[in-house]
């Protein structure tokens, strides 16, 4: 009996290590205004405003982040003041940003302290003509983007890719008319292993298909740290998503190359990291603080100076 009693007591002691709720002693967290205002140089500037909400405590499951609708939103651009009008769930200025503009944003919402932010629109990215080629009978697609970086400054860039697809497939017949074309808009996941561009890698990338530092995703952020003042052609690759499918598809790839301000770069970068660290694989990742340039609030006010390129390809059965 004694022989079994001691191990049993020991095991019971170990098993009693238990879960316990603890108090949050970080002070009550007042909701803050969250500003999402990354504009582009080819559209009117708009601003989304929501509120943050405490994580801890009771919430209704249907609670989302309702837009703030009673804000007064003013913009000063190169000394000219604009007042935003409310359009659906956002605020819209009658102003399209241009490279070099000096902007300041002021937002007042009853019940909240005023928030403000400043930014300068970055110069446009010096991009040559984007070249395209395909391999493996159209399955592998390659885009070459010639970029000239400005010397003696730290420059921040973004490349994203989408594809708009028109699919000619007969789904059903309505009123004797076949319904056969559907248009989709997808983020395109692309791959890049350019050593001047790709600096952040994880071991999961390393042991993947290619075995060298690489990026795979839909939004690639990078700096000119390894290419300051150089002209360099960045090669990105993706696969034809409809390759070998038995119906006709017209695909338009849209590649966006943009110059960003430092704040915009940090905001998007930390946003990416925050998403990744919420994945199970990154259970032990370092905590991420989302970058903000909003005084008195959270979020971003910045302009992406972008150039957009398109490429059409048809996938025939």
């Amino acid at each position, binding site marked *: 009996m004694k022989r079994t009693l001691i191990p049993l007591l020991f095991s019971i002691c170990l098993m009693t290590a*238990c879960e316990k709720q*603890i108090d949050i*002693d970080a002070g009550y*967290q007042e909701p803050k205004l969250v500003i*999402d205002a990354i504009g582009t140089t080819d559209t009117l500037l708009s601003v989304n405003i929501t509120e943050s909400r405490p994580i801890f405590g009771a919430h209704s499951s249907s609670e989302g982040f309702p837009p703030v609708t009673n804000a007064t939103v003013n913009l000063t651009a190169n000394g000219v003041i604009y007042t935003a009008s409310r359009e659906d769930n956002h605020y819209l200025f009658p102003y399209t940003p241009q490279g070099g503009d000096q902007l300041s944003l002021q937002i007042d919402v009853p019940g909240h302290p005023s928030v403000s932010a400043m930014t300068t629109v970055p110069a446009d990215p010096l991009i040559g003509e984007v070249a395209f080629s395909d391999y493996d009978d159209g399955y592998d697609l390659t885009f070459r983007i010639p970029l000239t970086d400005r010397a003696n400054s730290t420059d921040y860039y973004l490349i994203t890719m989408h594809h708009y697809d028109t699919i000619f497939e007969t789904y059903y017949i309505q009123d004797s008319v076949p319904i056969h074309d559907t248009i989709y808009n997808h983020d395109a996941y692309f791959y890049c292993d350019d050593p001047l561009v790709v600096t952040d890698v994880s071991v999961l990338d390393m042991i993947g298909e290619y*075995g060298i*530092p690489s990026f795979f995703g839909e939004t690639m952020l990078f700096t000119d740290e390894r290419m300051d003042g150089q002209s360099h052609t960045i090669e990105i690759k993706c696969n034809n998503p409809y390759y070998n499918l038995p119906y006709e598809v017209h695909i338009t790839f849209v590649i966006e190359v943009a110059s960003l301000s430092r704040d915009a770069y940090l905001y998007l970068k930390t946003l990416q990291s925050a*998403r990744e660290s919420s994945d199970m694989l990154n259970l032990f990742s*370092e*905590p991420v603080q989302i970058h903000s340039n909003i005084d008195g609030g959270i979020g971003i006010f910045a302009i992406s100076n972008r150039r957009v390129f398109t490429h059409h390809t048809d996938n025939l059965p």
Partner: protein
Amino acid sequence: MRKTIILLLLLLPLAVLAQTVSGTISDATTGETLIGATILEEQSGKGTVSNAQGRFSLTLKADTAHLRISYIGYQTEYHTVTLRGDRKLDVTLHPSVELEEVTITAERINSPQASQMSAIEVPVEQLKLVPVIFGETDVLKAIQLLPGVQSGTEGMSGIYVRGGGADENLFLLDGVPLYNVNHLGGFFSAFNGDAVKNVTLYKGSFPARFSGRISSVLDITTNNGNDREWHGGASVGLMSAKFNIEGPIIKEKTTLSLSLRRTYGDLLLQPLIMAVALSETEGQGTANAGYYFYDLNAKVTHQFNDRSRLYFMWYSGDDEAYMRMRTNEYELGKEHIKLGYQWGNLATSVRWNYELTPKLFMNVTGSFTRYRQHLDLGVEEEWTDEGQLYNEQADVSLRSGISDFSGQVDFDFAPTPDHAIKFGTTFTHHLFRPQVTSVQASSTGEEAFNRTVGESNVSAGEISIYAEDDWSITDALKVNGGLALTGFVVQDCFYPSLQPRLSGRLLLTDDLSLKAGYSYMTQYMHLLSNSNISLPSDLWVPVTARIEPMNSHQVAAGVVYTWRSLIDFSVEGYYKWMNNLLEYKPGATFLGNGTGWEDMVCMGRGWAYGIEFLAQKSFGDITGWVGYTWSRTMRQFDTPGEELNGGLPFPAKYDRIHDISITLQYKPNNRFDAGITWVYSTGNTATLALQEIEADNYYGALDFVESRNNFRLPAYHRMDVSVNFHKQKKHGVRTWNISIYNLYNRQNPFLIYPKTTYNYRDNSTYTGLYQRSLFPILPSISYIYKF
């Protein structure tokens, strides 16, 4: 160096005019040399202490010397020596416990007379009375009870000294560095208490002979072994068994000391795991899994003559967690899954002591130390389909480690009683293997996949040249000053560093002294570890062309007072500045440590300040100490492009403002003793998102972290007790040890996490913050027999 040589030349005439008494102080019953014994000439008041080899050298002008030789726990010896030329005097001291009237005399942690600032003589004998979990005497656990030293998270490795990181401590085992000093995630240390003779911890004002880390030096000397007769001991506890033996291979010439320890929980649980596996697979599967660690300490000492001695030291200690599962099902085929994770140290050295002259003593050491970790994962499946045998297998292995070869020459020179000079040089060749991942896969009928990725080995050379002098300027004023010149060569870069060290003591009365010190330290390697959790997978990496060496400046000042020769009080304040500290960038994960690690870290600075109080009672039936530390530890990473917390200062993870420890031992006689310990510390900090935002329509809510380490965990505290019952048996002494860890079952936080529960009735959610505790109340019993 030039100044040192000039100083030596200036001191030489003084040496010529005087005579020198030199020799060795050792235990009369075991022959074990005694470190730090005091040798005092009573008429002149001049004195010295024995060095790490038990040797002393005292140069006097008098014709006759009246020497008093004393050591805590031993009877004081008096010798009158006539000095006509240099004299040899080997002294053996008798332990005071041989007296009929037992008086506990514990070693003093800090005394007014000692010139060294911020140094702690860890009371090894007292350690054996400190409550211990599973009956394991543990040096590191005891050190964590001293002011200025903090443990990591419970169950996790590392000690944190005066705001430094876990990688900023130099652990020396007989002069050889150990890179990982923990077993079972820090619950046990790598230092087997049975093998340890002397422990000194330096928290600041480091003597010039130590370099390579910026926050602390833990200098551990192991037993040489009894040179007269064979003795030993064995113990069996709930977790581990230990065995040690020591004795003369050649009487009074060659000794052996051997200690072995191994946990055996894996062996005991094996039948249970197998039974579960058989039950779950209906007799078709087998499984074994477990965890164990072991330590082996061995030391052979050979004395050629009075002037020459050779030591060989060996330490190896490994942890291993393993799991193997096999299933053999008729329809599904065979499956074999294996997991093995092994990490540990190996350290070995050969040291030769030689007395060149009675005043000049030399140590020549060659050593090798290695830390490595292996992780192996494998899956193999085999099945038959239409008469065809198919096989698929995949293996992943991760390897990393560090190994050092060192050569070292040290000299002790005592030209006059007022000077104890040490000088020497060390060269170390480091080989870093940051991490290599190998993947092998094969499948019947397909080409095998075999790829190894990771960084190639990095070689580096480290050199250190030092000189220091423990100088009694007057009877009241004593300083220990020195200079270390170090350099590190890696990737065609050379990082030199000139490091001044100074520590002084002003004796106001025999019982009261003021102390102050300054030190500058440089460190050429980093331990990459995740801020959330510390694992054996943490990697040692060198400084590189991009990553500069860490350095620290530290100033400290304090007062030491002894009340009626009964209780020592000390108060010490410090301020430390640290540069080039490393942290992972936001979002980086330890999974990616192995490759491109320089891109995943950012460099910043830190500072720490605090005040430490200690009261120690060393005499009587009841002994012990009370320590309290008030401290702050901050970090700032504001290099453009590498900011953490937006470049603003933030508290370090182990910024614990209050730290209290109370340790009491009671020993009324030789048959019974008891101990009790209570510790309290402010909770660690943690980074916690308190709000969530909609930053992206596509992705939905994201956690928003206001600032780094913005949340403080609940305070840590616990009480441990232990009692020992000793009984003299025919061939030795047996001891029953009963210990209770965490007596009042405090649930200290190990892990915190948010958890959301759904209420489907009103379609609402509730998110709370929860903690997991690791160790509840843990009673243990162990049996020890010493012969």
